[in-house]
């Protein structure tokens, strides 16, 4: 018993300073939640930090990749920024009309200041998906029990869109003699520079990259010393959404049905009403002839 206690005590003394129990780095907790249902949702982030960082003039950035099936409305984001309900770096232009198949994924950055709990609400919208020929059904095992619901199956296709988990970067101005590793577990040994123009983080390793001009490098390296941090994610809801898609096989019958309806209605309108304008026009023509005679 006594030798074991001595061993433990001596081990604690020999451990590096940063790993001691009293100041052991903790992982920030990022809660992720996809609100409600539907094509228009909120992606809610709940970011929790250890209180050791509160007075260190730190900022954090959540780097979020949004898949092609999702878009943000730049105008809506502008309104939220104006109301000071959202802070971050967003693309200047996002095509809100294009379907998923013609869109690409893009990155956004959400800014915040470390505190015990910080909540960020990002409004996102799902794009329509092109109809598909593939048979992909939601809860197929349940539906297949009922023959009658086979019809429903024909009309109930869905595509799954999944939002990937974000990355967390942090930068502190007043760390004094301490390094960031003392407070947080960093996921990479590099520090990163935030390129606001391309909305991405770049390592200084790319400094000699021939593709980037010295001026752009200067702009990038103006905002460096960002650290990628290990995060403990808490998924409060599923980040996947099932987006309805049509059945491409239904196109021919719908085409012919639409043509038939429009033709029948148009012809019926003419057939049913043609006598009225004819009567009016003859009356007006008679009036015109009389008027011409008077002249």
């Amino acid at each position: 018993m006594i030798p074991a206690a001595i061993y433990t005590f001596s081990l604690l003394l020999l451990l590096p300073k940063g790993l001691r129990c009293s100041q052991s780095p903790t992982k920030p907790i990022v809660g992720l939640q996809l609100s409600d249902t539907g094509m228009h949702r909120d992606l809610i982030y709940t970011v929790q930090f250890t209180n050791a960082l509160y007075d260190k003039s730190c900022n954090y950035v959540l780097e979020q990749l949004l898949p092609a099936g999702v878009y943000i409305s730049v105008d809506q984001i502008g309104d939220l920024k104006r109301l000071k309900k959202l802070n971050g770096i967003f693309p200047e232009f996002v095509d809100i009309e294009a379907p998923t198949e013609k869109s690409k994924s893009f990155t956004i950055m959400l800014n915040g200041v470390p505190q015990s709990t910080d909540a960020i609400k990002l409004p996102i919208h799902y794009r329509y998906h092109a109809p598909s020929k593939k048979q992909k059904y939601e809860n197929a095992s349940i539906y297949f029990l009922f023959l009658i619901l086979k019809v429903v199956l024909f009309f109930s296709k869905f595509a799954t869109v999944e939002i990937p988990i974000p990355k967390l970067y942090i930068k502190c101005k007043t760390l004094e003699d301490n390094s960031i590793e003392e407070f947080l577990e960093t996921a990479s040994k590099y520090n990163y520079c935030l390129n606001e123009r391309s909305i991405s983080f770049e390592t200084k390793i790319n400094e000699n990259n021939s593709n980037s001009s010295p001026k752009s490098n200067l702009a990038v390296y103006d905002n460096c010393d960002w650290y990628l941090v290990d995060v403990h994610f808490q998924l409060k809801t599923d980040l996947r959404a099932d987006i309805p898609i049509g059945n491409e096989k239904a196109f021919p019958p719908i085409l012919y049905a639409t043509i038939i309806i429009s033709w029948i209605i148009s012809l019926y309108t003419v057939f049913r009403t043609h006598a009225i304008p004819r009567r009016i026009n003859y009356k007006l023509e008679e009036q015109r002839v009389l008027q011409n005679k008077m002249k």
Partner: protein
Amino acid sequence: MSMSNTAAKNTPQPTKTLLSRCGTLLLELSFRTHLLISIALRLLLITYGHWHDAHSEVPYTDIDYKVVTDGARHVLQNGSPFNRHTYRYSPILAYMQLPNVLLHPALGKVIFAAFDIFVAILIYLLVRLQLQVQCRKAVHALLSKFGKIRSAQQYNETDARNRPENIARASACFWLYNPLTAIISTRGNGDSFSSFFVILTVYLLVKSEDTERSANWLIFAAGLTHGFAIHLRLYPLLFSLAYYLCLSTSLTRSARDLLRQLLFPSCRQMLLVVGTCIALFTVTGFFYTLYGWQYIHEAYLYHFVRRDVRHNFSLYFLLQYLSGNATETSLLEKLLILAPQLGLLLYLSFSFGQFRQTLTFCVFALAFVMVTFNSVVTSQYFVWYLALLPLCLNNLQAISLARAFIYFGTWLLGQALWLLPAYLLEFKTWNTFYWIGAQGVLFFLINSYLLMRLIEHYSFTSFKVNFKKLF
């Protein structure tokens, strides 16, 4: 018993009295007072919108207003308004919105709301003018039958019993107090602006029939406003045949007659065509030199190739969605889709576009068909025909008030039934594409039925002639 009855009769019924007094008061108000009330209502809505936007995440302001304001910002920076994504209007709208950027962000809405008021004034003037012209024509025709042509000069054209002022005021109020149009314009939508020029064209054409001396100038001016209206929005282009035919001197009964009319236009028809071309090509050409091909593509060509797969009221929504990115319709299929709409537009132009007395109803019916058969239908498009409906109210007096409410209720029901699957798709991600498609068909059928009923109830004259005064 009798005393108690008398007492009951004498006891005032507050609700009924208040309602009837309000009704009487509204009827007795002058047109100017109605205008002032409407201006105040619109200013109030604009102020509310400004306050709402400052406090709410869901803005009152239309997204198009932001687009046009951004366009104005680009113009101020010597750029093109088309640098703003989804700017697909005439550059004039961006220039009109310069005060938004320079003075106050809500000023553009005031400009659009002002055109709302101008539309009401035009409706008032046009309905009054039409009634006067129709009445005079009816009297002349009647007198000529009795060989008393000279007596027509003495007959008061605006016989008080025909109530042209009252009907004109009621028609204008129908527009002024329409909540849909008031909200749309105060949210910053500029559809009233283009509607103003459409109605102005019709007004000038009807006015040209009323005067002999300056008729040609009025027709030329109608051509100019028509050309400008086409420059603003493409849809007035489809009114052209009706405008052209209403200036003819004889009835077009066959395709041969039409061909003759087109090949050998009358002097007045030529004036209309020349006026239209001058305005259209001058304004469009001027902006083409400023903004190049991008302007032509975004403002005009885009609307022909547009493929909006997002849910809307259109009959063709499901078809467009299912065609997706891969499925292309053949030329024959495209023709089969387009032919019913074109056929109906031709039919209506021939049926109601040959006389200026029926021109307002013709333009309304054409706009109604255009919207009903459009590949994309949203609430905003309803303004196209709602601005023209008040012009025809006098011609639809055969419809009783109860029946009018039933028709209006049916039209609203069609939209409400569509809203349910649209809500389930947008906010519950239910797969309701086919349901929305079916409701689109139902709304299309309702609109077509309403068009038929309106045509069936249409009458162009209903005059009371004072025979004692006449003979």
